[in-house]
């Protein structure tokens, strides 16, 4: 495997792991949300992030191809879903319906922003370096 492909593969794996860790943090915060609505929201969005990351990480890790696109495409699909769920935390964490306690809502809001910004950066970088269109 060429140095270039190895470098992009490492970046892709690291990005998925970062999303996985952030997803686990939001899952861990679920019991502290203070209301069953906030609890279910965190469990739902967090589970999507964790499951998608766990499914895609071995797929990306086991790719032995020299074709950079074959590594970038599954990684981008995983990041797409995770980033989107991050956006979900940004727009729902402080919504009145969920009645999440303010400190936890703020943490979820911040974690959501981190996921959104980092995910966007990772998607754009992978798209640019692997020359894969964003709509993967």
């Amino acid at each position, binding site marked *: 495997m060429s140095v270039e492909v190895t470098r992009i593969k490492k970046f892709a794996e690291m990005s998925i792991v970062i999303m996985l860790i952030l997803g686990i943090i939001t899952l861990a915060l679920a019991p502290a949300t203070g209301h069953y*609505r906030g609890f279910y929201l965190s469990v*739902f969005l967090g589970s999507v992030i964790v499951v998608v990351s766990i499914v895609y990480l071995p797929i990306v890790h086991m790719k032995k191809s020299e074709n950079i696109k074959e590594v970038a*495409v599954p990684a981008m699909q995983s990041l*797409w*879903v995770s980033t989107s769920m991050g*956006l979900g935390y940004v*727009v729902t964490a402080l919504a009145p319906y969920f009645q999440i306690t303010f400190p936890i809502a703020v943490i979820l809001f911040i974690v959501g922003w981190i996921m959104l910004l980092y*995910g*966007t950066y990772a998607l754009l970088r992978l798209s640019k370096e692997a020359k894969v269109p964003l709509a*993967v």
Partner: protein
Amino acid sequence: MSQPSKEVRDIYGDYATLTVPPEELRSTLNVFMVYMGVLAVVAAIFAGSGLAQMYDPATTIKVALIGNTMLAVFGGLIAYIGGSTRANTYLLLRYPLGRIGAMIGSLVVSALPLIIWFAVETWLFGITVNVIYPGHPLTSIAAASAWGGILMMLTAYYGFRAIALLSYITVPFWYALIVIGFFGAVDISGGFSALWAARPEHIAPLGVGITYVFGLYASGCVITSDVARYGVKRWSGSIAWGAHVLIFMTVLLFTGAAMTILTGSPNVIVAIAKIGLGVGALLLAILGQWTTNDNNLWSASLAWINIVGKLNKRQWVIIIGVIGTAIAAIWGGVYGMSLDPFIAFGTFLGYFIPPVGATLIADYYIISRYLLKRQYRFGPGTKYGVINVPGIISIIAGGLAGWGATTFGLRLPTGVGTFDAIIVSFLLYLVLAVIMYKTTGKIEVGEWVEKPTGF
């Protein structure tokens, strides 16, 4: 199947008049995601509201599943043609309708209806903004339709990367939001027992609902090749289409119906507001509408290029965008008139779209394979008939049959307008093609040679 050589330039963009080259093919999951992005529209949830006014929740699921199974089969057959030939809808129609016939088909399938649906979506955008932020001059339906239409037009014209990225990121959460909205509505409205106990005063016959569901997306089935042509396997598009329609369309229809039943609001945006999911969620719903309308503009411009062969996609975006925005803002907004006449015309055209798909299926799977012994080939120098006579007659007859069955109660095999239109055009095409071939030795008149641009 021929692939464009390196010398053939994609001057219109997005392989509008060419087949997709092998290096551009994408995975089945990828094709599935693209279909999901197309489906992520507020209109799909609004359609569920329509079912809520006809059925109880259990019957809604039954009707949605039957209608969507039919959509999966019909669209899947057409997607397979796109996956096998790597050609978009407008290229494929050159065989069952002829080269000029394909232009007419493109006009009926996309070029005209998409202008109307662009106008309708822009108008709905104006209404949505007005619901969320009432009482400001800039958020009146007319003003919001005007600036909304202009923004949609400009983002489609310039392809703003930030908007494209945001809409792309929005899609997965949009589905999550629908699930959250559904459970939120159940939560604040008395739980599942209240949902299952709800029923309208009169339950409509099953056939009415199945027609409704099938009619919602029958036109979408006809253009499945536009996405399926990128599938890495011949069947990628068929599998992706079937899964997304059968599972996600059913879920969207049911959640739309449930939210209407539980919140009492036929407007899903109002329903989300009532639940208290926050302004951010509402803005995302608007973004979904926005990006869908971007796609309407792009698809319509693709069709017009194939019809006229002049101007590029961006120029068509402006022309179509100005017309659509004017209809939404002036007709719908300033004069406060309903867009029903436009919707009625779009619906009338809609009767002729499924017959186009039926004729394509009949030609590809039966007539071309067993009678004419030809393969679908595309590329510079390829010869097509100018008019495929049985094809044109079949779509006109099928469309009129569907219109007659629905509007005037014309008694046809199934009594369901869209199915009747499909059955009539499918059978008529087979019969006319065989008769014409046996008597004249061909089914097309004239000859059109494809130019280096693919036109």
